[in-house]
């Protein structure tokens, strides 16, 4: 993985010193709350429901064992012994004191980490595929360019105060695992055969996003050779920074500008701007690409053959769900599930962090990744070590075999922690996990993505869940709206709302009914989504609302009870 050199180290240290100074000026009253707020946000520091929340970047999901141990140390020293992995390659601590945050940033800088631009109206952490570099279906490793983008976007003087936040995702595989259709800029790495042989470049998608106004991104340029990624991004950002709306925060994302101008006109303005920047000094060089790419060379894999795995049903289930094909024979990528039933999805204790760091050291070249599905990945595990890894992970509650299954829920922190939330999300996830606690049934149901967001900001990516759950506020009570048929990947699309929302205690039944309709209607080999696409939303809708009183009838029913 990437290791800092002198400029990288200098900048994170100077950043920590700057923030210490800002906290001091805020405490002395020289900086007002309004003046301090955007500054702390650009270091990932929120003031939340119970306490501040500090968001730490895990750029494109890569983490070393040493870094994870440092996060465990911070969790123990400054928090309540745990952290939370988000859907955008960040770790969040929910209980630090503001006064301690400068010290925390110093500790992070020691291990080449930071909270730079993890919030605020600036260019956020660049995200990618958790299997980057090892996936069997990878065309190009996206990490060198993700790191180059990280450096370029760090303290970019022109784009620190954009109309709204700005998220970039980059993917280098045939099957998109980075939700690139729903980012402000989504980059699909691809090869093009041309006059001069193979050229590597991107398809550039702009203006996607979930949140309040979910929109699938549109292609602004079908192919952009990789050398131009920085100048082209500058052109996009400049058009957005100048002309994006600033009068209404809900209409300030680039997607609104792209919609208002139309993608052709937006692309024309970008190309016009780019004409001035193209081939300028910010054009990437092969030397720089090679320098950064050198950090991501494959580790010293052994020459192995695929042997037989121990015959143990529980182990076999875990292998089936929690491993991913590796491009090197004899190796596999292991997903450690942070979706243990009854635990907040994405949460990890300091003890678990230490254990995962040890597993990474012993079995996976000292590196690990976190995924936007909020799990931890050991990317380079020998298949012959799988049984040992499974036993150790299992003992630590990290081996729930539910990756891609109903209880592997993607879920935001919700109303238990987040100030923005309209409703709690973690208790809903836990209640659904409790209802589907039978592993045989869970495996029989098969692949299905369930995503829960506590508000329309959509941190739980509910729009792209096969089943999406959105917390809404109705007359100060918490309700949940259900969508069906959303999906990520190359055919990414938004789910459809099935009807009126539900109370929290109804949610396990609602999901149960949806699953039953699938089970009753599925053809052999059909996944939930296949059945849904074939039979449509109505059978699900009819079952869920069958005999259910609505509106006034429901109020009357409640009053009678």
């Amino acid at each position: 993985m990437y290791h800092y050199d002198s400029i990288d180290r200098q900048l994170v240290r100077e950043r920590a010193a700057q923030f210490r100074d800002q906290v001091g000026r805020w405490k002395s009253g020289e900086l007002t709350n309004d003046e301090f707020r955007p500054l702390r946000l650009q270091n990932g520091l929120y003031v939340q429901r119970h306490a501040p929340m500090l968001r730490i970047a895990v750029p494109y999901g890569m983490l070393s064992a040493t870094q994870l141990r440092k996060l465990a140390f911070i969790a123990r020293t400054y928090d309540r012994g745990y952290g939370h992995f988000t859907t955008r390659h960040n770790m969040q601590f929910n209980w630090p004191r503001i006064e301690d945050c400068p010290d925390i940033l110093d500790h992070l800088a020691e291990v080449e980490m930071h909270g730079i631009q993890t919030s605020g109206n600036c260019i956020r952490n660049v995200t990618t595929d958790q299997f980057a570099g090892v996936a069997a279906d990878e065309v190009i490793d996206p990490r060198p360019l993700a790191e180059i983008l990280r450096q370029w976007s760090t303290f970019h003087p022109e784009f620190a105060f954009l109309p709204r936040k700005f998220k970039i995702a980059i993917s280098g595989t045939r099957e998109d695992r980075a939700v690139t259709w729903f980012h402000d800029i989504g980059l699909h790495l691809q090869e093009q055969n041309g006059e001069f042989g193979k050229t590597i470049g991107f398809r550039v998608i702009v203006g996607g996003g979930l949140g309040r106004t979910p929109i699938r991104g549109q292609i602004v340029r079908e192919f952009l050779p990789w050398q131009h990624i920085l100048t082209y991004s500058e052109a996009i950002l400049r058009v957005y920074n100048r002309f994006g709306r600033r009068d209404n925060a809900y209409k300030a994302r680039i997607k609104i500008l792209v919609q208002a101008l139309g993608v052709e006109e937006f692309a024309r303005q970008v190309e016009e701007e780019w004409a001035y920047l193209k081939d300028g000094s910010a054009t990437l060089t092969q030397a720089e690409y090679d320098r950064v790419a050198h950090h991501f060379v494959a580790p010293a894999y052994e020459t192995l053959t695929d042997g037989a795995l121990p015959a143990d049903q529980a182990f076999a289930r875990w292998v089936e769900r929690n491993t991913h094909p590796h491009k090197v024979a004899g190796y596999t990528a292991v997903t450690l599930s942070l979706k243990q039933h009854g635990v907040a999805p994405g949460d990890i204790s300091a003890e678990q962090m230490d254990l995962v760091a040890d597993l990474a050291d012993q079995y996976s070249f000292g590196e690990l990744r976190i995924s936007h599905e909020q799990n931890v990945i050991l990317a380079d595990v020998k298949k012959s070590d799988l049984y040992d890894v499974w036993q150790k992970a299992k003992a630590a509650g990290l081996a729930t075999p539910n990756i891609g299954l109903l209880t592997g829920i993607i879920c935001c922190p919700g109303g238990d922690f987040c100030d923005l939330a309209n409703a709690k999300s973690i208790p809903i996830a836990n209640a659904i996990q409790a209802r589907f606690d039978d592993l045989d049934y869970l495996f029989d149901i098969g692949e299905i993505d369930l995503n829960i967001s506590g508000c329309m900001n959509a941190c739980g990516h509910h729009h792209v869940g096969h089943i999406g759950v959105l917390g809404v506020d109705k007359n100060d009570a918490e309700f949940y709206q259900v969508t069906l048929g959303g999906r990520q990947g190359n055919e990414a699309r938004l789910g459809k709302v099935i009807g009126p929302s539900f109370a929290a205690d109804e949610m396990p039944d609602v999901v149960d009914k949806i699953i039953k309709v699938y089970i009753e209607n599925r053809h052999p080999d059909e996944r939930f989504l296949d059945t849904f696409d074939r039979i449509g939303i109505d059978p699900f809708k009819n079952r869920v609302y069958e005999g259910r009183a609505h509106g006034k009838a429901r109020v009357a029913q409640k009053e009678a009870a």
Partner: protein
Amino acid sequence: MAQLIKNKSVTVDSWKTLELAEGEAAEGIALPEGDVIFPLSVWQARRTEIISTHKRIGLLLKGYDRVEDVAGDLEYFIVIAIDFPKFVDGRGYSTASLLRQRYKFQGELRAVGDVLHDQLFYMRRVGFDSYALKDGKNALIAIDKGFSTFGEAYQTATDQPIPHFRRRA
């Protein structure tokens, strides 16, 4: 009164800015004498008159004012002031970048409005060279610390046209 920071010190401001009151038309307003910073609309409406009556001319760019609309006139301006209505409104950074990098404006580029200590580093990088620091803020601390927050930068900007990756040994 804002405190004008220039060349790392607080200096006396010889310029006055012409403000159009609400409902006041650029065509009818009286043009003050001396060193005046004119709003874009007044410049556009009274260009010939201003050139004949004023030796030293300044221009004020606000909000969505487009640099492109005044690109041919830049030689007339000794100073261009770019307004930051709120410090979190970052349009001015692009306006400044364009003036310096594309249109090669050589005069004074002044940040006015909600100008604060913690934005000075970025402002300097995009090409500002004078800063009307908001009244009530400590200008000496801002001068001492605000411009030197970071000793290096990755990306190109007006102050550094060569990205760090091309300056590596």
